[in-house]
């Protein structure tokens, strides 16, 4: 089975045919890969180098924490990659984006209005949680399509605060 793994704009072609050997960009590597905790912790011996990784699936990617670094890796097989490329689908925050509350809290202030253009990183909402005020910022440039909360209101986790278009 041939896969294409993409991270940090780099692409690795990885072929898995046997349990204990893989081809990574054509180079054979010995692998011994184990799930350690029945959940998310894996141990990999790669040509005897020992790596321990926490792997979580998020938004269709694999988040791999290894040796203190975090990587977001997209894995596809060849067919899917061709399909996606043919359809011209682009990944990234385009189209409408619903900005949600990352945790329950109190809306302290709403800093934007409907129709207002915003720049990436601009503050949208102040949310108080864990006794701290947390700034919810725009993930990209856009226009405020809707504001769904008011100051003084409580927000549930994942409640939509603002929609950008």
């Amino acid at each position, binding site marked *: 089975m041939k*896969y294409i793994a993409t991270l940090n704009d780099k692409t690795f072609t990885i072929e*898995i045919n046997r349990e204990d050997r893989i081809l990574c960009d054509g180079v054979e590597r010995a692998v011994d890969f184990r799930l350690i905790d029945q959940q998310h912790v894996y141990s990999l011996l790669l040509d005897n180098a020992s790596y321990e990784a926490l792997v979580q699936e998020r938004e*269709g990617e694999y988040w791999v924490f290894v040796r203190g*670094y975090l*990587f977001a*890796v997209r894995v596809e097989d060849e067919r*899917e990659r061709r399909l996606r490329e043919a359809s011209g689908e682009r990944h990234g925050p385009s189209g409408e984006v*619903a900005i949600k509350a*990352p945790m329950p809290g109190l809306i302290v202030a709403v800093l934007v209005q409907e129709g207002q253009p915003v720049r990436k990183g601009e503050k949208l909402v102040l949310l108080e949680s864990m006794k701290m005020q947390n700034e919810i910022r725009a993930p990209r440039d856009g226009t405020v399509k809707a504001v769904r909360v008011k100051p003084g209101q409580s927000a549930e986790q994942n409640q939509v605060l603002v929609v950008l278009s």
Partner: protein
Amino acid sequence: MFRKVLIANRGEIAVRIIRACRELGIRTVAVFSEVDRNALHVRHADEAYCIGPAPARESYLRIDKILEAARRAGADAIHPGYGFLAERPDFAEACEEAGIVFIGPPPRAIGAMGDKATARKMARALGVPIVPGTDGGLSDEDLMEAARRIGFPILIKASAGGGGKGMRIVRSLEEMPDALAAARREAMAAFGDDDVYLEKLVEGARHVEIQILADQHGNVIHLGERECSIQRRHQKLIEESPSPIVDEEMRQRMGEVAVRIAQAIGYVNAGTVEFLVDKDRNFYFIEMNTRLQVEHPVTEMVTGVDIVKEQIRIARGRKLRYRQEDIRQTGWAIECRITAEDPFNNFMPSTGRIVTLAEPTGPGVRVDSGVYEGCGITPYYDSLIAKVITWGETRGEAILRMRRALEEFRIIGIQTIIPFHQAILNSTRFLAGHFDTKFVEERFSMDEETPPDLEEVAAIIATLVAHRRGQAATHVARRAGREINGWKWAGRWEQLRRSG
């Protein structure tokens, strides 16, 4: 000794105090809010009483309910920990009236120092240098006026404050109204008191504090200093003892000033005198915290003194077991505060359930933790979940141990600040001891080169997981069309950009 102590707190510090009591043979009483029924401090205590709903104002800040629990349990003393009611003279008084020993300073001393603005006045009167600023109790208008006089940048601080809550840096008059409102709001939420005062911001300053111990018989000693300049939004993140900039002579001078202040107000029990140290190593009194500090373990590890046990003994009327000459700092200790905050996403607090937890152990490593595998992290309280403290013969060894310990720390289910600590511990400025209280915000970045071979490893690991999950790729394609959760994208993209 006391027979039974109630701990009017939660989290790691409640567990810390329960441990001290247990080692002294004292029974312990926990109090808990409704969301904390399964919290670690409830599990560790001998008895536990529910004192109300989740919000602190309805539970951990309710003096009446805590005293009722103490009466029901027959507790003869109360330890307030830090935060919550720890620096509220009315609480100490209420304990006294109820015939229960408050393990902390007398209400008068809390009042004298708890109001940070009054404390500044007193220090000035003692001839202790202080940073220019205002008294407390002023209106917004008066504070605006004073700010103009003192000059910017300026610091707004909560009179009842501590722990960076209700603190704001202001760089111009225009920012003042918003900053005042925010600081007062935070101060009210954290301490139930929205009074603030101003202090001139000394650029390039370090935060160094002296731990003191005072008994009821007039004996006061200090346990040396702690360096707490690694902060973010006025929240200490890394502390160490000794401080890289304090030598024996400076330690003695700072210690003497701290002892003098404590004596002047008839201070009893453990306390911390905080100083600001400028680039020329001049030190200025800023405030005194009349309670146990979060960072007390670094002092314990270099002096061998168990500060919490000593607090209990002092409250019981015992004489200090140490004279000043018995106190010696051996080696170096560093503490990293582990908070449930995502350093890859603007330090956003993270809530959820800890599904996997493995805390570091081994030589020279101490963990003071308030969590366990399977426990939930709620949005109601401070985001501090644990502290890792390492000791070494030298600062270098302590740092290398801390790196090793953080590598071993596994928390799954919530995001934590650990990667941030790892980046700090790798920064050359930190290693060299060259930093001030603005280091994190102004001169530190988490951008770093990713080792290219690790990228390949991550690609291989992700692919092996996907391969195991069989139809993983199909799954990805199906999900890609769904509505996207903005904030996660934001965090992710930022991370990709950083590591790209």
